């Protein structure tokens, strides 16, 4: 290399410098797109900071906590019956389902068990709140992909479910109906037959969605192969519910650990899908609504007679101890970890809500997708802001 003249060296350096200049000029600047906290796709106040190259996402970072209401702390200054009023508001589309794991955990600490009739009705209402919740997802997913009409069908048919829940509990969105040791009231007269009719309507709604949305080629082109979650990645991020079942993991707390609910008395199926993409998450949820209607139908036939309230003291003091109960809520596995010191109020409550964990995968999942797919993927992960922020 010694025979390189000065002239050659200079020209080499000049060429390098020119190359560097060109690279500098051609380098495009990324754009940071701030999706939310006010954005139609986040249905709430979720914020996603997306770094874009053109329309491709380089990095996405969800910012949570805009709607944090401090429920875990607030429960520490409320008696056990008062807590249900609060935790109703966590997943506000399927509120009754929020009460059940908390009540079950408190019952476990108190060592009472709800009578069979209460357990059966509890399961029915639990499944109905699941239907009310997921039906809205089925419509909303279509809106996020761009079809406006299905969501109106979803709102129309959800009304029937809400009417039935209202007929029993007196509340459409926030029933506050579950009690330690049973339920507040019995079923009203004629409710069973009405509910069977409603379940029929929900099944026909599912058929409608299947032809209108699921079978649509554009919908499939937008969702198939988009946002694929392999089973191991999903499990390592703590995904639960339909999100992980869509990745082929056969895990449903209702079947595997039905503590205190009457899922073992009915004949139903846990659906899974091998693909793990947005489409399969939609598909699994659609099948879940169908299974839920079947569960409700079977339970309506076999509600046992008897009291709806076990013997519990007038003033509820939960003995000292710790209990964790989880159930399969509409959004995924939800659990309450209650620590009691034998007081009127819980000493500490930890809420494991499904959406928080389901959202935690989003930075991994959104890397490299296009902007329109951010919306599809988020919609198919299906979060409720109250469930993320609590």
């Amino acid at each position, binding site marked *: 290399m010694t025979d390189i003249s000065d002239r050659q060296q200079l020209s080499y350096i000049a060429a390098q410098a020119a190359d560097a200049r060109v690279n500098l000029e051609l380098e495009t600047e990324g*754009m940071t*797109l*701030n999706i939310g906290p006010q*954005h*139609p*796709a986040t249905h709430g106040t979720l914020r996603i900071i997306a770094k874009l190259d053109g*329309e491709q996402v380089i990095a996405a970072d969800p910012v949570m906590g805009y709607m944090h209401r401090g429920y875990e702390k607030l429960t520490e200054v409320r008696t056990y019956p008062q807590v249900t009023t609060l935790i109703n508001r966590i997943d506000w589309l399927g509120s009754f389902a929020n009460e059940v794991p908390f009540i079950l955990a408190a019952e476990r600490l108190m060592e009472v068990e709800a009578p069979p009739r209460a357990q059966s009705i509890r399961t029915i209402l639990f499944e109905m709140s699941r239907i009310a919740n997921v039906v809205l997802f089925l419509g909303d997913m*279509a*809106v*996020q*992909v*761009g*079809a*406006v*009409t299905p969501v*109106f*069908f979803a709102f*129309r048919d959800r009304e029937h479910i809400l009417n039935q829940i209202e007929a029993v509990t007196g509340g459409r969105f926030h029933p506050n109906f579950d009690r330690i040791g049973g339920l507040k009231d019995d079923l009203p007269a004629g409710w069973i037959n009405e509910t069977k009719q409603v379940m029929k309507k929900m099944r026909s709604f599912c058929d409608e969605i299947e032809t*209108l*949305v699921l079978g*649509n080629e*554009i*919908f499939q*082109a*937008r969702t198939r192969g988009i946002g694929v979650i392999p089973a191991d990645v999903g499990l390592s991020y703590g995904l639960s519910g339909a999100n992980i079942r869509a990745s082929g993991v056969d895990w449903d707390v209702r079947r595997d650990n039905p503590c205190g609910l009457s899922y073992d008395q009915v004949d139903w199926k846990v659906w899974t899908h091998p693909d793990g993409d947005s489409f399969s998450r939609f598909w699994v949820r659609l099948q879940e609504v169908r299974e839920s209607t079947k569960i409700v139908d079977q339970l309506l036939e076999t509600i046992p007679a008897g009291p709806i309230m076990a013997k519990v003291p007038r003033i509820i003091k939960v003995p000292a101890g710790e209990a964790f109960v989880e159930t399969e809520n509409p959004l995924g596995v939800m659990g309450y970890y209650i620590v009691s010191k034998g007081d009127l109020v819980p000493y500490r409550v930890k809420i494991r809500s499904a959406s928080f964990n389901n959202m935690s995968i989003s930075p991994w999942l959104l890397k490299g997708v*296009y*902007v*329109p*797919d*951010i*919306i599809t993927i988020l919609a198919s992960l299906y979060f409720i802001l109250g469930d993320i922020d609590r």
Partner: protein
Amino acid sequence: MLAELSYWQITSLRVAGGLGGVLLVAGTLVYLHLFKMVSFMQSRLGPMEAGPFGSLQLLAEVGKHLQKEDIFPRKADKFVFGAAPFVILASTFLLVAVVPAGPDVWFVNVDTGIYLAMAVSSVSVIGILMAGWGSANKYSMMGGLRATGQLIAYELPLILAVVGVVIQAGTMNMQGIVAAQANGEIFGWGGIGNPYILTQGVAFFVFMIAMQAELTQAPFDMPIAESELVSGYLTEYSGMRFLLFFIGEFATAGVFASIAAVLFLGGWWAPIPGLAFDDNVWNLLGPLLLIGKIVILTFIVFWVRFTFPRFREDQLQRIAWKFLIPIALANIVVTALFKVWF
């Protein structure tokens, strides 16, 4: 009848007719399709309070928008931002100029009518890009860029579909195309003339899809995409300027539908055997027939819009370049061969 009027009388009639032809038709389409048809599809009633069956709702909306503050974003390019809606509206009015509604009911009757229409319809791209750029908003910018890519891609199948009709009619004059359909024959049989939807069905299919994309209606509403880009290039607009965009959207839908009606459904003429009227009767009947055809065609547009999800940007481009353009080109070749043989 019209021939007896003086030049300025005819001109002012035509200007008034142009305004009415755009705005009244746009209003009708908003009421019929956006307010009512869609509501019935979505199991609701739509507006019912303003006027009988809510028919005056649009006036109420216009009044509301006129009262609103005309907001310019702080970092907006004020001139570009302000001018964008007028550019789009200008494109619409230029477009309607060549559409005939009767033997004497026309605004301009140029020999290259359809050529002019295709040319001025691209002006709206500039308006949309101006709106996207001028808003100084990332969502608007992305919407504007998406719109530009989309509209340029779909100009091509639109024009190629028209070429088939032009070859068959042998003229670019819009009146000439109507006359060619009225006097046409399908392989020697001239019982109902030849509305080109029968012999140019493929071109009609391509034209309707490309038109859907040109109007940025779902499944091609990527530029607006309210669930991802908030409202795309419309995000920052409010009040009067938003109203202009809104009216422009429906007016353009009506005008494109009228062009499709002239090209494929015979325009102001009706394919009924033995139909022979005086020109004066056609002058009255023609606009009504044309509006009826516009309503039918826009019904299809809005039916599709409120049924289908939207494509992604790359899928949308793929449809234009790999599906629509080859079909349109094949249609041109086949039409030319038949034109030579028969």
